[in-house]
């Protein structure tokens, strides 16, 4: 006998960035279809970059995202510098990491406290949680502010920074201005440790998944700007080989392209949990001690525990930012000279939400001929759908409302940035 299928739909996901929904179809106890529906209009950044000067590109790609603009700028400048065969020295390199620390702090602090914690504590929103957890909410906002302050000082402004240049920075702050941040960041380091202890005390549903983790890995540091792309299944490639290993593909229900690995286009996980699993021992000592204290063991393959990974990365970012701020002296030159040449280059950096790939082809005048941008949420889409299928299969006997709520919580654990990911426009033309 064929029964009528149950259809569970979440029209608009809340507490995620951008516009997306969920669709689940179940027949009997079989999950027939699961779709993460991304219906936000495509933004076509890759096309509008064509013909633009390399000097304009970091400011344009920063516009892709209001919460992770530094990631876009970092992948951009590294890809273009790779094409031009130039490498800024260690001072610039450290300051780029400092800027990235600011972005990780502001992005993770907001997600942990305002967007994700309410799921564990039974509140519909951070706002609803505020009356019962005022100190935690205030802490989250203060940590976010510290991240913004770092972006303002070294990026020129807190949202869509304008101080990142191919070759370095346009100008760098005085040593005294950087030193003024130190007391706040010392408070922030302890507050981030407290926040991580707090989220590690939450109840986590058993939901380990057979992930292939994919992240950058660097022999000497927790990855942000540099390293090789590695996976928990042994992949180890350079950023230049990304396009040979990963393939974008379309699904009709999403305006964001999917991305698969290898010939089979298998799904994989990027983001804090993947970074932590592949780079745990490279955390700053403060974060590594804390990871041990709160019981992080590898593999940590429960997506809900990503809130702990974000907490540890906030601690790491504070520790590293403090180390750089305490030794900061304004470099004599904010950037190196860059000479365009006809070439192509690719780079991968670690956005708060995971691996962010950029590739540019440029002409001899430094004008963009082709651009490819693959954000982390695009890469996680197929994994999110696989997780949802697994979740619904395990809860198929539950009421629809409960399944819908649990699915939404699962998606939120990825901290997806849907607006970043949309760049696919499917055109169906019918001629009569």
């Amino acid at each position, binding site marked *: 006998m064929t029964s009528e299928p149950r259809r569970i739909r979440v029209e608009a996901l809340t*507490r995620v*960035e951008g516009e997306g929904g969920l669709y689940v179809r179940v027949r009997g106890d079989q999950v027939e279809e699961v779709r993460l529906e991304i219906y936000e209009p495509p933004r076509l950044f890759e096309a509008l970059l064509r013909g633009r000067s390399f000097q304009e590109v970091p400011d344009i790609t920063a516009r892709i995202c209001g919460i992770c603009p530094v990631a876009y700028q970092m992948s951009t400048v590294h890809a273009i510098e790779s094409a031009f065969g130039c490498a800024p020295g260690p001072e610039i390199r450290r300051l780029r990491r400092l800027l990235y620390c600011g972005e990780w702090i502001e*992005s993770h602090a907001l997600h942990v406290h305002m967007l994700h914690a309410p799921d564990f504590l039974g509140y519909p929103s*951070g706002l609803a949680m505020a009356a019962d957890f005022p100190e935690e*909410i205030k802490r989250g906002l203060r940590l976010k502010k510290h991240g*913004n302050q770092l972006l303002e000082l070294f990026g020129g402004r807190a949202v869509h920074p304008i101080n990142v240049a191919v070759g370095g920075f346009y100008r760098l702050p005085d040593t005294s201005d950087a030193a003024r941040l130190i007391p706040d960041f010392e408070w922030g380091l302890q507050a981030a440790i407290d926040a991580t202890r707090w989220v590690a005390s939450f109840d986590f549903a058993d939901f380990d998944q057979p992930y292939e983790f994919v992240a950058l890995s660097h022999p000497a540091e927790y990855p942000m700007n540099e390293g090789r792309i590695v996976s928990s299944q042994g992949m180890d490639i350079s950023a230049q080989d990304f396009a040979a290993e990963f393939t974008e593909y379309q699904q009709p229900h999403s305006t964001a392209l999917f991305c698969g690995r290898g010939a089979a286009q298998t799904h994989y996980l990027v983001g804090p949990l993947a970074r932590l699993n592949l780079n745990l021992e490279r955390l700053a000592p403060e974060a590594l001690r804390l990871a041990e204290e709160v019981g992080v063991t590898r593999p940590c393959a429960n997506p809900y525990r990503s809130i702990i990974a974000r907490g540890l990365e906030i601690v790491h970012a504070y520790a590293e930012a403090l180390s750089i701020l305490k030794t900061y002296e304004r470099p004599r030159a904010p950037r190196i000279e860059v000479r365009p040449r006809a070439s192509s280059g690719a780079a991968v950096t670690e956005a708060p939400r995971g691996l962010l790939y950029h590739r540019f082809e440029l002409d001899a005048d430094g004008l963009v001929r082709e651009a490819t941008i693959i954000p982390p949420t695009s890469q996680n889409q197929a994994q999110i759908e696989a997780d949802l299928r697994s979740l619904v299969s395990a809860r198929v006997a539950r009421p629809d409302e409960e399944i819908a709520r649990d699915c939404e919580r699962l998606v939120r654990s990825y901290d997806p940035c849907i607006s970043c990911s949309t760049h696919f426009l499917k055109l169906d033309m019918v001629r009569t």
Partner: protein
Amino acid sequence: MTRSATLIVGVGSPHGDDRVGWRVTERLASLVSSLADVRTVADPSEILDWLDGVRTLHACDACHFSGAAGHVHRWQWPDVPANVSKTAWSSHGVTLPQALALAGALGVLPDDVTIWGIEIAAARTAEPLSPALEQVATAVAEQIAGELADA
């Protein structure tokens, strides 16, 4: 820590008529310097940083709610139309009503909060404030200054 019991905040961005909240506070800075603290923000959640000791808050922001461009709404918080405060939270920031609601939930919101919502038609990147909105900003600034002087 603020030095005054009255805080005036202009919310906005550098994009065309979305700048109008900032322009109100720019006009006010010289008019009320001894009577109030005056700030401009792009992210309304920053308001929470300055509420210590504040008893009266005026927040000026562009809006696209109802009425022609230049129309000024004056709302006494929390009596604001439901669809003004209904936008969902995201990781990309909060609106002015959300920031005020959060301040209320945290117990740090002053008792006396006035929102000045100034209707705009559009906010175009890299354009200056339109002449019509310049006049509205001046009028709103003078009204706030007058009320503070009479208080």
